């Protein structure tokens, strides 16, 4: 038995040690907003916040998440920064297919929490998530827009 705090709610699940947090979220908690992309922490589609840090959940064992605050895309619109990020994403019309965007929004939320007015270099350093639709410029614009609201 593992006890997790996901989006402020305590959840108890059965999972062997080593099970990636991603699959606990998707399969055991039914939270499919967090996406499977590569399984090796390369693409960032699975990014969630663990104690506010952008974390690639496909490679983050569930036991390491015990005692932390996990935030997923499902709660982003009630997150004090995340809701501005989402509004900016909509304003900039950032997503195309949208598959990577949960991870992008989470990564941007973590960035803006520590760096409300990120420079281009800050964005480059923090936003390493892959978008195959190539929405990188729209994402950068959205991050700047969100920063203006903070």
């Amino acid at each position, binding site marked *: 038995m593992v006890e997790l705090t996901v989006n402020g709610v305590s959840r108890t699940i059965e999972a*062997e040690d080593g*099970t*990636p947090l991603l*699959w606990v979220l998707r*399969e*055991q908690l*039914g939270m*499919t*907003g*967090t*996406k*499977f*992309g*590569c*399984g*090796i922490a*390369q*693409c960032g*589609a699975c990014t969630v916040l663990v104690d506010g840090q952008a974390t690639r959940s496909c490679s983050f064992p569930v036991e390491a998440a015990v005692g932390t605050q996990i935030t*997923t*895309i*499902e709660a*982003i*619109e009630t997150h004090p920064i995340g809701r501005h990020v*989402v509004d900016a*994403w*909509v304003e900039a*019309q*950032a*997503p*195309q*297919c*949208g*598959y*990577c*965007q*949960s991870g992008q*929004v989470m990564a941007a939320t973590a960035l803006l929490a520590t760096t409300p007015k990120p420079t281009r270099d800050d*964005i*480059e350093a923090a*936003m*390493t*998530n*892959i*978008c*195959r*639709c*190539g*929405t*990188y*410029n*729209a*994402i*950068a614009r959205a991050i700047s827009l969100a920063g203006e609201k903070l």
Partner: protein
Amino acid sequence: MSAGLAAAFAATMPARRPVNLSRRGMFAAAGAGLFLGLAIPVRAPRAQGAPGAALRHAGKVNAYLRIAPDGTIHLQNPFVEGGQGIDSAVAQIVAEELDADPAAFVVTCAPPGEDFRVMQGGNARFTGGSFSVRSSFAHFRTLGATARAMLIEAAAQRLAVPAAALTTAPGRVVQGTGASERSITYAELAQAAAALAPPENPPLRDSSAFRTIGQPLARLGVRERSTGKIAYAIDTKVDGMLLAAVVHAPRAGAQPAAVTNEDALKALPGVHSVHRLPGAVAVVADTWWHAKKAADQAQIAWQALQGPVMEADFGADTMLGRLKAAAGTHGNTAEEAGDIAVAFSNATRVIEAQYDAPYLAHAQMEPTSATARFNADGTLDVWVPNQAPDIFQASAARTAGIEPSAVRIHSPPLGGFFGRHFAYGAANAHPQAILLAKAVERPVKVIWTREEEFARDAYRPMALATFRAGLNVAGEIVAFHAAGHGEGPITRHFGTGALGTPAVDGSIMEGLTGKPYRFATKRVEFVPVPHPPGINLGFWRSVGHSMNDFFFESFLDEIAAAANKDPFALRLSLLDHSDRHRTLLNAAADLSGGWRRGPFTAPDGTRRARGVAMASPFGSEVATIAEVSISEGEVVVHDIWVAIDPGRVVNPRTIAEQVQSAAAIGLSSAMYEAIEFDRGEVATRNFDTYRVLRRDRMPQVHVRVVESGAPMGGVGEPGTPGVPPAVANAVFALTGQRLRSLPFAKTRLSGA
């Protein structure tokens, strides 16, 4: 995608034939023979987009539209949304003629069926070739106008007035004006209107009066796509389903003789069962993670090569060697003007070059998956990422051994596609899901790992082109010869019979053919060189153009250099006959602040230069300029300026976004991407070894949409092919190094 492919898809009525459920039958159902019998290729004219084309489904209002009591307009889309904005585009077109708010639409991908075959004169349906808007523009306009007429008629009956006394405002039928105006909402009228006969030839709005078509409207579903609320195929949840992970044969064609530790696997947490499938082993479990953990540990005895087989010694250079060996072979004529032999004999100077491009993966962010559920009534539901529901219905029926009419295909939004989700035989997961659901008598969802995705994609084929140009004393081109070598996805999936006479594979030749430049004497030919059967071939964003425009436009710059001419001026001179192309080329130059080749020193101190290229993909015209510098031996692209002329525009904002996206994938392919083989196995199986463009190398992309009024062209793909040559030509201008082999990352560039 070429006209050849579009035509090849034209006859897609599922073949009704019994299915052999023997092992051999199962294999055939999942194998590369899948396409055969589906398509009778014909070279049909592409007279679409204009009213008057066959619109045999445009009166079927009730099949497409449902207006809910809350005013929401539910629209069935023959095309699948995968980021290209097609849901929004069709809503925007219908909204114009229906007289409705485009934001009131909820659009879903339609099920298979006759009613939704809106392409090719009402006979075909697929999402690809940048065909969606241009092939359905007239259909959706007429559909919207028909629905509007029915709503007006319903209001006329209710109010007991002639229909001619009524008009519409967005979402309602209106009687009278000013103080005496009264109106009834579409929602109130919907039920009565649906019972009416659709009128023939409803009046269409004059294009000068368009209010939504041509506007930069926001796309639908952007908030949902920003908050994880879209359910892609991989998110499908079905009551009672089990999850499956698969391990394909390391070398395509090998079959699983046995899983030697099957008992041990079954003892692992959550594991339900272990299955041998054509070319793969599957573990079925209560969760996908349990299935994957067990599949990772499976000890499989592979043997009995069967079906499309990969060569055991196929390595990094095997195919390139074959293509190079074929260079110079006489090919089939694709384009010809004048006597090329005589022209070359009169040339004072001949320049030659050879170019090549590697296999590419689609690398869409959503890995392939499929879910299958057999129902008590004998029907089958399949949720699968796909670009052609009718073809997948037929394929699923054959695998399941039931009638196509008993198969429901669900087509969720795609997490990217770029050509990945056509029916590619063993590159699709739905046959596995169906076979497993049948075996375990429960619904099954198969999810491929990223490694399986890379190893079993249908790749953009490796190809090689040779060029030869004869110049006269003045440096003018008097003879031009180009030859494309290889095998394209049209040959592979539709057979040589689809290639016409002489046999020319458009999916390997487009971009060498169809160029706008005028050469007095030229010959373009196709040299067939087959790929191993074990390498699946697919349509990759902009298909043949994705490599051929790089080859052609780079060589054109080589000609310019040899003739000591400016490459921009050379292009203008070769386009003397075409106002449309010269206008577009000048638009790109204007957008970039005027043509400036360089090298020059940028404000940040870096040495930079610019390159230019043109492309004529999918009915649209594109001119591209790129500005580069060199850092640590690698090209850095700072800005890309694209002028695109799609003839006519539905949504300029979406077009600009699609050009951004297409430019990104074009640059990614030029700089980094290549599928590599080692001893018959795919060696590049995740994003650590298959490098793609990330944020840190994304240039600014500036787009100008030029609406020339020409017949409507495509939008999703045309932004891709101009980017690699524009960048390569800029690199040459900066360094003098001519890049002739993709991707650029394998060539270390000298500092400028």
